[in-house]
């Protein structure tokens, strides 16, 4: 029997392995499979890359589109899929190697982690609106459960809060899906895109706003993102790293994918999203100034970067979009380093509070060095990868002669420096009584080191990968090509 290399595996493999989990417990294969699955998916993604670069892969399930469900792997979604797999690999490797908390290493965590990966992959790949809703809920449910995994009061609180707000988002999104179906009678995205212009204007607005609220809550845009810091703080940092690393990226991608696909002229919606992105960025960076819990601070910082990405993608120019996609990837790497470092620090010093971490840099020099590296990268300081992508975005704005986003981005970066450098300073505080540090597994640094190495590599040599992102941006922006790939050239 030969297994064809199709995009279906991105969803199917983690789902199958997750549901067969009792088997793996018995066979003591839980941890190897947990790490192995994203690794295999990453390899699969790499293997598919040459094909994807030639033309988008459309994988039909049962019936051909527009009637059936299909998965579409183009250059843009490939970036997300590879990112999800890679992030999953590093995070699970950290869980395995880092010898961490037992609740992250048991069957439930295994199931939910794989479900999260499957859900996100599905969201990114699917070409069907209702399917999108399903994957959205799969990833949502697994995320709620992951937050509550620790089963103490803060974790349960985080899980509950996440569940409440997430369900509301899902209801809004479902409402939009229902309206779309009622108006067009189609669920295939390409088909909807063709028919969307025919919907009466007020209904378009209603659908758009419903989707905006639904996805905006999930994608952490400004007036809908008040839940984020609480959830990130209550969850384990590795889980928060996954949220910040690919969950929110997947939602953001879906949001912009829908915008660019459904709307013939994404100008107005893009402007709205740019505004929301700018507000998200500025508000989050300012509020982050007063945080004294590392997880919460990182949550705000993550919000800020999401805002930046929304700003870049919303502009819709090729350079900003490519830069935005690149920044997604970079931000994922950076936040992974930061959250995993936070996990190490939390395990060493029990607390993640600023006051308790004073002088930690002298007790845990490696972890602090990774934190510094991540902080420098997230602020966009060269020669790290955050700089390359920010430069790309800003260059895109400058080429278009639009300067207010440039000013806002730079201002936000300055504010961001205000709190990151405060943390760095405190980490290296000279203190006579160094805090007591509990032992951590040295192998746990390996995934962080890999991510850190990539941060530096992508910073020094972004030209290695910039083609991918340009193609991704073109795939994301080129509505006609996307439609014809699904519906055939004649449509």
């Amino acid at each position, binding site marked *: 029997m030969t297994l064809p290399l199709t995009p279906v595996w991105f969803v199917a493999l983690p789902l199958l392995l997750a549901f067969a989990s009792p088997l793996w417990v018995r066979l003591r294969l839980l941890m190897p499979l947990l790490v192995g699955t994203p690794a295999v998916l990453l390899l699969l993604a790499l293997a598919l890359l040459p094909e994807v670069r030639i033309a988008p892969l459309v994988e039909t399930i049962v019936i051909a589109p527009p009637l059936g469900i299909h998965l579409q792997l183009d250059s843009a979604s490939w970036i997300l899929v590879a990112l999800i797999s890679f992030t999953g690999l590093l995070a699970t490797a950290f869980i395995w190697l880092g010898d961490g908390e037992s609740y992250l290493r048991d069957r439930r965590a295994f199931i939910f982690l794989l479900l999260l990966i499957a859900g996100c992959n599905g969201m990114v790949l699917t070409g069907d609106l209702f399917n999108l809703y*399903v994957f959205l809920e799969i990833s949502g449910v697994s995320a709620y459960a992951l937050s509550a995994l620790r089963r103490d009061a803060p974790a349960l609180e985080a899980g509950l809060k996440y*569940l409440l707000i997430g369900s509301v988002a899902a209801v809004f999104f479902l409402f939009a899906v229902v309206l779309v179906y009622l108006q067009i009678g189609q669920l295939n995205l390409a088909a909807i895109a063709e028919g969307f212009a025919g919907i009466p204007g007020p209904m378009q607005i209603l659908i758009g706003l419903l989707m905006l609220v639904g996805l905006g809550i999930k994608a952490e845009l400004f007036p809908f993102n008040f839940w984020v810091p609480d959830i990130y703080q209550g969850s384990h940092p590795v889980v928060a790293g996954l949220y910040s690393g690919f969950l929110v990226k997947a939602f953001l991608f879906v949001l912009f994918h829908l915008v660019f696909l459904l709307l013939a002229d994404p100008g107005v919606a893009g402007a709205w999203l740019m505004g929301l992105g700018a507000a998200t960025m500025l508000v989050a960076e300012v509020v982050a100034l007063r945080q004294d819990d590392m997880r919460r601070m990182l949550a705000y910082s993550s919000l800020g970067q999401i805002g930046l990405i929304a700003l870049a993608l919303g502009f819709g120019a090729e350079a900003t979009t490519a830069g935005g996609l690149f920044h997604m990837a970079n931000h994922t790497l950076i936040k992974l380093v930061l959250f995993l470092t936070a996990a190490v620090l939390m395990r060493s010093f029990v607390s993640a509070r600023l006051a308790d971490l004073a002088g930690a840099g002298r007790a845990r020099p490696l972890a602090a060095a990774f934190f510094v590296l991540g902080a420098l990268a997230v602020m966009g300081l060269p020669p790290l990868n955050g700089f390359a992508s920010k430069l790309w975005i800003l260059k895109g704005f400058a080429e278009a002669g639009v300067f207010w986003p440039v000013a806002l981005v730079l201002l936000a970066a300055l504010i961001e420096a205000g709190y990151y450098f405060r943390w760095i300073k405190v980490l290296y505080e000279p203190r006579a009584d160094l805090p007591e540090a509990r032992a951590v597994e040295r192998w746990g640094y390996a995934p962080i080191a890999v991510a850190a190495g990539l941060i530096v590599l992508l910073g020094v040599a972004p030209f290695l990968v910039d083609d991918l992102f340009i193609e991704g941006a073109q795939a994301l922006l080129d509505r006609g090509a996307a439609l014809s790939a699904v519906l055939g050239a004649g449509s």
Partner: protein
Amino acid sequence: MLAFLNDPGVLHGIVVLGTLILFFIGLYGLLAKRHLLKVLIGIALMELSVYLLFIGLATSPGETAPILSDGLRSFTHMADPVPQALTLTAIVIGLAVLALGVSLAIQYHRLTGRADVASLTELKEPR
């Protein structure tokens, strides 16, 4: 007596009105109630209203179930099967979410003795 219901416009109007009322009742429960279970019930009501809306608007009077049996050999005068399938899926998902929510709420209650949504104050902005 209820013949006026055979007019799709009237029927759909009633459905829209009813589901919207249901939706806002759910929203009210979600926003105004403090007990966790009541809040979850609010969410469930909102979801329910969306399902009802979907089914109600996708079906017109006089359509039969989309099952090819009992001598029915063509696809005429059948309800669109897709909304029903979708709604079934959505109900399953909604149930899963609701179950997870209820279980979390119960665990929370067991752990802390509280079931008040306003008492979720462990995680908040620093003063």
